[in-house]
């Protein structure tokens, strides 16, 4: 009976882990939206939420790792599962760092670039959402994992295009005058786009795990 309870608890822990990642992505989108709109208080609240969520994912990852090893569960796949959770943790770390950097540097995003900057944010968040769906499917329905991974590749590519466009606008137009601000703009554009790259890196690993686990 004990092991049934432990199995249930572990499944629930893993589900909550992915919920937390989803919530971090949502909080990130909300944070950037509030920042661009100049709603500082709400932006700070999102940043606090993300910090809490990041701590939660760390704790949860450690707990899952402990349970997997101490109860000798899924011996063939636990290394892969832990690898997946660890690389996913990097995504949340990046999300937190980007938002924290916004709070520290307070970059000035020109009005004419705000919409596209928000578009870049949404695209990065979409890659994270699809990465979460792919990862959830890995545990329950392995045959559809690749459908989500393909979407991640697509959104990441779209994010790259927006990233390039924003950088060109920053450097090849008069929208931003100072070189220092141009460089700062490039830095933030790259950091937001990096989230989609990291989600893609998670999916690259995942696609190998899928091959290993394919029946």
């Amino acid at each position, binding site marked *: 009976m004990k*092991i*049934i309870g432990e*199995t249930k608890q*572990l*499944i629930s822990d*893993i589900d909550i882990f992915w919920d937390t990642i989803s919530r971090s992505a949502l909080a990130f989108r909300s944070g950037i939206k509030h920042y661009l709109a100049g709603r500082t208080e709400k932006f700070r609240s999102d940043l606090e939420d993300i910090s809490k969520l990041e701590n939660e994912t760390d704790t949860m990852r450690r707990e899952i790792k402990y349970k997997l090893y101490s109860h*000798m*569960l*899924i*011996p*063939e*796949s636990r290394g892969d*599962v832990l690898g997946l959770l660890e690389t996913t943790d990097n995504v949340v770390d990046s999300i937190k760092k980007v938002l924290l950097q916004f709070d520290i540097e307070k970059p000035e995003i020109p009005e004419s670039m705000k919409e596209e900057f928000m578009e870049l944010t949404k695209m990065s968040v979409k890659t994270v959402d699809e990465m979460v769906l792919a990862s959830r499917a*890995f*545990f*329950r*329905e*392995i*045959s559809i994992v690749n459908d989500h991974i393909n979407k991640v590749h697509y959104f990441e590519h779209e994010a790259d295009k927006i990233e390039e466009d924003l950088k060109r606008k920053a450097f090849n137009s008069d929208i931003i005058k100072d070189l220092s601000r141009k460089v700062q703009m490039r830095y933030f554009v790259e950091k937001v786009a990096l989230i989609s790259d990291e989600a893609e890196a998670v999916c690259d690993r995942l696609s190998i795990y899928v091959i290993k686990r394919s*029946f």
Partner: protein
Amino acid sequence: MEAILIFLSSGLFLGWSLGANDAANVFGTAVSTKMIRFTTAAVICSIFVIIGAVLGGAGASDTLGKLGSVNAIAGSFTVALAAGLTVFLMTRTKLPVSTSQAIVGAIIGWNFFSGFQTDVSTLVKIVYTWILCPVLAGAFGFALYRLIILYIRKSRIHMIRIDHYTRIGLVIVGAFGSYSLGANNIANVMGVFVPVSPFRSIEIGGIVISATHILFFLGALAIALGVFTYSKKVMSTVGSDIFRLSAIDALIVVLSSALVLFIFASEGLQAFLISYGLPTFPLVPVSSSQAVVGAIIGIALGKGGKNINFSTMGKIGIGWIFTPLASGIISFILLFFMQNVFMQTVFN
């Protein structure tokens, strides 16, 4: 009593080696993939091997009796010793070996030595069963693999839950596999001693325990001893020489081979099939190792048939011919020595 034990020792040795090697076919992958602890596996295996041997061992043993009823205890000792030696020598030379084939060869060796006629129809039945055993296990492996995978895909069960169910499944199927191993293979260990059983039936609380049951119980104890003393080593390497099996593959392999061993051992199933006018399976001791290889090939075919090492099947073929031949010759030579050097009656 001491003399009886000395004469039984070759059968008990055969039992020990069966426990040491064949228990790995039942629980090896589960233990090597760390799904079940060795002690748990060994306890379950021993209990169910004993139950299987005592309750279900008579059928396959009768068939061996029909092939050649060794009628002197020194003869039985020598026949079992020849089979044991063959298993030992072939294992040392890394040739695939089956206790079932070794004992059949040794009995035929005794038939030749004693001048008794070998029942050709029984021999044909046995040989045809040996071929049928891996083929049937392969068919079970293929079908079970497809069914289980289809179920997993449709039901969207969580990976952790699948792991949990697989673990429970491995214990249940392992217990069934151990029962089938005991029921089917006890004939190899103690079958040749049945006609010359030194024991008498005893009655405990109104239940009569026959001399054969006592004999089978002793043989099963020897198997259990083999499981506890030596099978851990074998279990840790099982499967790696063919290919790495997943826990679900292991479950299917054990279930498939257990079903085959059960089919060729169960008098109940035979009676059931007869009652419905269906064709029956002969009750013959078969090789659990070959059933395992058959089941693994079945799974590999279920996965699309890639990377199958067909040389393994060739090796089984060599085993079919070489094991009974070697065992027959060794048996003949040992019987000669037993009769002419140690002055023992090896047949009446």
